[in-house]
């Protein structure tokens, strides 16, 4: 058990962080905190990918010395590529989410989702009458 934890602490940390981010995204009422939760969740996945892609004693596949190349000296570059792509995607979704939060704040002067829902319901009923 102890060995398992010591050998896989990156993955365990990643899963715990994923859970923290997931729950923040779900249950926080503040929009900014929700977006922070989203980022924690995404970052946990990058940690997982990076940890699984890394092998002790090997280096990133950017050769310094082109004379004796061997696949054994390098790590698998694909997880790192996935992390980079994932970061780009996460930046754009976060930007979109922040823009939405800003729009809601300008309209309702609050970032609390519960209050926003109440205010928008009131607004709709006012419009009906």
């Amino acid at each position, binding site marked *: 058990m102890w060995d398992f934890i010591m050998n896989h602490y990156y993955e365990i940390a990643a899963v715990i962080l*994923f859970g923290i*981010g*997931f729950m923040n*995204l*779900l249950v926080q009422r503040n*929009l900014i905190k*929700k977006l922070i939760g*989203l980022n924690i*969740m*995404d970052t*946990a*996945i990058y940690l*997982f*990918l990076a940890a*699984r892609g890394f092998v002790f004693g090997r280096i990133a596949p950017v050769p310094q010395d082109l004379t004796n190349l061997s696949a054994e000296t390098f790590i698998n570059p*694909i*997880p790192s590529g*996935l992390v980079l*792509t*994932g970061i780009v*995607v996460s930046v*754009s*979704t976060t930007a*979109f*989410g922040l823009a*939405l*939060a800003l*729009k*809601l704040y300008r*309209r*309702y002067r609050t970032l609390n*989702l519960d209050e*926003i*829902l109440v*205010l*928008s319901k009131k*607004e*709709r009923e006012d419009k009906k009458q």
Partner: protein
Amino acid sequence: MSHVLPFVFNFPSFSILMTLMGGMVTPFIRNGRVAQKINFGIITVVGVMNAILFGTLIAQGGDGTYTYMMGHFPAPWGNELRAGPLEAFLATCFCLVMALSILGGLKDIYEDVRPKKQYLYFLMMNLLLASLLALIYTNDLFNAYVFIEINTIAACAIVMIKSSGETTVATIRYFIMSCIGSGLFLFATSMLYNITGELLMSSIQEKVIAIYQNGDYAIPLTIIIGMMVCAVAIKSAVWPFHSWLPNAHGSSTSSSSAILSGLVLKGYLILLMKLCYRMYTPQIMSELRINDVIIVFGIAGMIIGSIKALKEHHIKRMIAYSSVAQIGYIFMGIGLGTDIGMMAAFYHMLAHAFTKPMLFLAAGSLVHRAGHKYEIKALKGSARENPLAGIAFTVGSLSMIGIPCFAGFVPKVFFSTAAFQCGDWWRLTIVLIALAVSTVLNALYYLPACVHIWSPKKEEVVHHGHADAHGHDAHGHEEAITEHAPEAMEVHEEHEHPKRPLGISFIASMVIFIASNFALGLAFTPISEILKIGVSLLG
């Protein structure tokens, strides 16, 4: 590369790149109408290209499927597209539905979206089509993830672009749910990459079969597919995760509602079907008991979505809840786990894609006639003033209920056939009961809406005359007695809500939608043959 592929085989990648390029060019145009023309041109060209590809693949017969290496990088490194007759057929249909949905709601778009932002709407349409095509054609799991995110942002943007408080709140709920789905999908993808070391679906299949037979990693395999099913379920609004859908689809402009319901939900479902067939084989899916979960979600969605729709008074929200029920049908078809069940699911997808946009556009037009009132009661008599929209709404309703001759009937027959074939008595029982109950429920909320829109609004005129307009009091009384109440109403309200005439684009789109509905309902033999061939080549 030993042989050169025919030129036609480049069309999937061309169409994805073309739509993406369209999205990149549009910001420099800054004129809504020009952007609309470019967008329409792109959709037409892409539709024609996919139709040609479909024709070629069907003419080839037999093994009409091929893999297309992006940039000629071979399997473990490169990014692949995979096209077969089914994919080409779906892409053609999606282009057609998208073009018709935009045409039908064009006036609403110009009315609901501020003039400065109209070009952005068509930018999002280009991106949306690109991501849908990519989800149909891609053979790479990570690529699918990236296009899911593009799809999410574009879909949220077309809800938000009608600037009102309601749509912004609906968008944030949609956005949060979508982000949860994307996160689950990405985590599942990275875990699967760790176990198999592959990202291409076909290569993953070999590894998954080997791992499964070995007996290692049985729990991770279950968790991964469970997370992926959850992600797709959240994004396509299957029952327990549907809370965002009615607001997002009910409050946006009619074209957006039509495209979101008709196409965006389907993109994710197609991805799920590919995951079932190409990544995890149907056999492993049923041995891991994932199919049971999918079928239960689907059936719960069918019933609960309809009950929610029954309670709804807002016409667009009612149609949106009906989408939850229809997605439940498709999920049930996937959960049956047989080829014919999958074929029925694809058929239902097509039927829904050609029916729901028509319902949303017709409802949008009727609502406009009734002076922007969304309550079903307020729409009384609107179909008499706007018969084309009324007919389209009625055809759509009958199709969703599942009356023979209309599109929605055929998949229900195939669903029951599939249930009989899967040889499992409890599946057969619950599928047949669910089909019967949900058909009755569908009829219970669609038929009253149809009756409401077609019935004359005599009392309405009297009430209206008494209640608010003093000047029109006598006028209202007089007209209430005569038979021509609707026309009187129109005169009465003329200066409050200027009525716009039906545009030629709306008429064309409604007529084509109605025609394709009948085509799907009557010519089911050739279409189901195509889908059968397609499903057999999907794996």
